[in-house]
């Protein structure tokens, strides 16, 4: 469904992505692991077109999207949930969801506000609350809900567990598994190995802008050498 091949990206003169190659199949949850600064967020932003890739391909459902603008990539069916959440703080929960709304594909069950509230019941209790007056966990739910309103077939989840309380993290994991059951494909960037293990089928380990290791989570957990080399801070 998603194939990223030889993706390079620069910030000014800094060469951040140095040929990232990864793939996600329909309905899969793939975890993108790695330390701070390994290039996880940049990979997501490059797929999304928010950082212009200097080289490489991003194929989604057979179309090459590299070099396209973010709105075109979003309309092609990729949803992006940023690490900083970027809720519209002046807009209410309902309005935030409204901004994300996009028409569904034929045959796709469309996301509605009610369906988002069924996934994240606590949001349903604060429909008229401005985004700026919500807790971190609530904002995380809202930013995911907002992206789902666009009826994406793949979502890029950038560190959804960051800064959240353990109880909320578990609820977040349940939500991701529910989305997976609905057939959504997820590319998840994580530093929290425990969380990644709860939800992911496969892991790609990023270090200095390249994928260094790929495999199942079980294999990763068993491989002390890889964990030591690329993941332990």
């Amino acid at each position, binding site marked *: 469904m998603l194939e990223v091949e030889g993706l390079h990206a620069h910030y000014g003169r800094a060469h951040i992505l140095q040929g990232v190659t990864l793939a996600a199949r329909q309905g899969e949850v793939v975890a993108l692991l790695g330390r701070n600064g390994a290039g996880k967020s940049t990979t997501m932003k490059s797929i999304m077109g928010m950082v212009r890739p200097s080289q490489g391909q991003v194929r989604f459902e057979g179309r090459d999207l590299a070099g396209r603008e973010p709105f075109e990539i979003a309309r092609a069916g990729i949803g992006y949930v940023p690490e900083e959440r970027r809720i519209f703080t*002046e807009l209410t929960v309902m309005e935030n969801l409204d901004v994300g709304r996009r028409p569904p594909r034929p045959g796709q069950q469309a996301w509605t506000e009610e369906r988002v509230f069924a996934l994240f019941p606590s949001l349903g209790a604060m429909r008229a609350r401005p985004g700026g007056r919500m807790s971190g966990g609530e904002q995380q739910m809202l930013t995911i809900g*907002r992206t789902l309103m*666009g009826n994406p077939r793949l979502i890029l989840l950038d560190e959804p567990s960051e800064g959240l309380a353990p109880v909320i993290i578990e609820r977040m994991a349940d939500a991701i598994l529910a989305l997976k059951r609905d057939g959504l494909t997820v590319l998840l960037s994580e530093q929290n190995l425990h969380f990644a293990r709860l939800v992911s089928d496969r892991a790609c380990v990023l270090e200095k802008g390249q994928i260094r290791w790929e495999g199942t989570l079980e294999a990763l957990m068993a491989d002390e050498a890889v964990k030591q080399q690329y993941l332990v801070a």
Partner: protein
Amino acid sequence: MFENLLVQGLSGLASASSLFLVASGLTVIFGVTRIVNFAHGSLYMMGAYLSWTLVTALPRGHLGFWGGVLVAALIVGVIGVLIEVLLLRRIYKAPELFQLLGTFGVVLIVQDVALMIWGPQDLLGPRAPGLRGAVEILGVRFPLYELFLIAVGPVVLGLLWLLFHRTRWGTTVRAATADREMVGALGVNQRMLFTTVFFLGSVLAGLGGALQLPRESVNLQMDLAIIAEAFVVVVIGGLGSLPGAFLAALLLGQLQAFGILIFPKITLVLAFLVMAVVLVVRPHGLLGRPPASAHAAHVVEPPYPPATPLVRYLGFAALALAVLVPPFMGEFALIVFTEIAIMVLFAASLHFIMGPGGMASFGHAAYFGLGAYGAALLAKHFAAPMELGLFAAPLMAGFAGVVFGWFCVRLSGVYAAMLTLAFAQIAWSTAFQWVEVTGGDNGILGVWPSAWAQPKLVYYYLALVLCVGVTLLLRRAIFAPFGYALRAGRDSPLRAEAIGMDGFRIRWVAFIFAAIAAGVAGGLFAYAKGSVFPTYMAIPRSVDALLMVLLGGVQTVSGPIVGALAYTWIHEQLMRSFDLWRLFLGSVIVALVLFFPQGLVGAAQRLTERRK
């Protein structure tokens, strides 16, 4: 007495309404696109002219008048879309000053186009059918049309509120105002959004202009007059805030209505003074919020390379020419050369705060003009000789730099540009309105050099020595530790402060240096021309300086010098050979902004770099 106050207050409200129409468009456009649209006043003027044409051509009556007004506003909306698609769309990522400058180019173009179509004379429109009469309020007659205008402001505010809170388009616009990149990642086509927002803003400006038709004559000065006020309103209210703009328009309308009663001499100063106070107390305006700068791309400028041998040779060659050739030139050429020397210093002084300082100034003419007035006032009121006058010029400009700079260097980006503009307007209106001291619009005449410097050639050498000397001093400061500290503060203010630099003080000192240098230029200019006028401090003069710096390239050290040479020459040629020089200059500005964002020297550097 009370009746008069009431009537005064009511006309203040009526002015506030039209001001709000213009300011609301400006603020909505800024909120989403982050562009401060100088051409917004031109759209307002077009609204007035177009409605004049339509209303006088259409049959008299309600339909003819109101239909004409609405159609004019819609046509202005379409013109706004054209400006957005052809120009602004290409410069959304450019620095703020480029955007201001690019839209100022549009102002110039529109001025000449309007002159060609409608001619130089003031045009009077018909009065509004059904609203011709007056009503009696406490025994005083008050025009019905003014009452209608008072109602228009709140009604438009209400409609806009509904549009922004009850439609999906409005919600999206508000979201984009906060974080437009995120809105794009959610699948919203920003281009379409920006264009529609620009259409709305332009229609509002056009409507504001069209509704002026029964109130005042339509003329070619409407654009800059309204844009200065609209800037003040938008900045006081908080850029991007509609209720803020409404509040500020009310405030300004009343201030001007009553200011005329209390301080008839300083009504113009009053508005800008209020703006300066508001900006210092609330740097983002009454109801504004700090911009979401966390997501703005921050460009770190590359360090300045020391002059290469080639640049040095070129510099020496130019200087040798400047010294050796003039004795063989005629008087007119000497005058032009003197002016060029002065402009080089003027440009270099602005570059000092813009380039290494990273501060946006849209009002640098204030210090140039204050230098000129410093010399001229001494000459007029105390019959001081030139030597004293040339000493007073930098002193006066430097003093203004101390006071104005203390406010300006606290702000950054658009707000700083607006505040520098406000101070320049204060200086300008003081010179314009304080007739007893400054001679007002007639200026001060008879500011001649001392006898020994009367020959044009001697005066040229005097100007050359002073201008080259001060320019070299500024250049020396850029490469001194002070200049390093200034650039450190520009590129990463937090880090610079963390290692113990007092960023505020460094920027303030730089601002004062720049003001002093501009003052020297202004003083020399006064004696070169023999007279001073308020236009020395007006917006176009500030734009001249900006153009010189940007033409040469902001982030190069030699840029302002090359820019001043090129600009003064082009300007001289244009004024001499074209009647429509504004149209031409405006097109040059737009082309510069579109195709040479690094300036001439920047473009040359790129070329030589590529060759390596």
